[in-house]
């Protein structure tokens, strides 16, 4: 949901506006995946072309068996202000994740599977990193149907041509 506030100064000259972004999602925790998804969705909402490239544990976001079970990292996450021993307790990650999910729902931010579908429907490209796919012994069948292809780093740079790259 949104309201109206004082507008920041905006670039109007087309040579100074962003036309295309390619966003890399490299982490598999909830807080590692969401920022890239929000950036990609936000780009499409502004009419900016967007590609998403999932690499390493970021692949969990598009893994059909795992993307509903992504958790907040509760161990070794100083931002949570939770003792490491407490974060490792059984059920803590699930509980913290559940609370985050509730807060995000209030802001109309969808759960990861729905968000990925929304972003794909908005016309963003979705790609899996070949090196990571090979390393985890995965194949295209392990991914949700919105994933267009498994591509190499070189192919990613080809797709990203003419735009900005954002690593998350």
């Amino acid at each position, binding site marked *: *949901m*949104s*309201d109206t506030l004082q*507008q920041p100064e905006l670039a109007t000259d087309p040579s100074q506006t962003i036309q295309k972004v390619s966003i890399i999602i490299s982490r598999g925790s909830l807080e590692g995946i969401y920022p890239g998804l*929000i950036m990609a969705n936000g780009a499409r*909402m*502004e009419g900016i072309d967007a590609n998403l490239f999932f690499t390493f544990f970021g692949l969990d976001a598009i893994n059909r068996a795992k993307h509903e079970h992504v958790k907040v990292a509760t161990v070794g996450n100083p931002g949570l202000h939770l003792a490491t021993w407490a974060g490792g307790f059984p059920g803590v990650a699930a509980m913290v994740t559940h609370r985050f999910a509730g807060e995000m729902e209030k802001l*109309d*931010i969808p759960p990861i599977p729905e968000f990925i579908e929304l972003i794909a*429907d908005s016309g963003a490209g979705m790609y899996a990193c070949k090196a990571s796919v090979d390393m985890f012994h995965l194949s295209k069948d392990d991914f949700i149907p919105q994933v267009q292809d498994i591509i190499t780093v070189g192919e990613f740079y080809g797709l990203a041509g003419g735009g900005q790259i954002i690593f998350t």
Partner: protein
Amino acid sequence: MTTTTPLGSPIELDPEGFFLRPEQWDETMAEPIARENGIGALTERHWQVINFMRHSYLTTGSAPSIRTLGKASGVPVKELYQLFPKGPAKLAAKIAGIPKPRGCI
């Protein structure tokens, strides 16, 4: 920024062309705003989205997110982007004469 319609009534717009006062909008303004923003003739489906945006804003005080737009307007997300390629929430808001949506989703 204040501008004047061909009929002479003043309207207040922000620097990007969004209405600051929705009550200054009427349906005859929709087509010219759409054309200025690269959308050809407005179809019934465009109007369904425009009316939904305006109704949501006038009843809740804020524009719907793209998620809500896709779920509740009757027009799915894929089609929203076909109708408004440069951003459905933003363009529909502009054409519907409501302030620019400020949500991140």
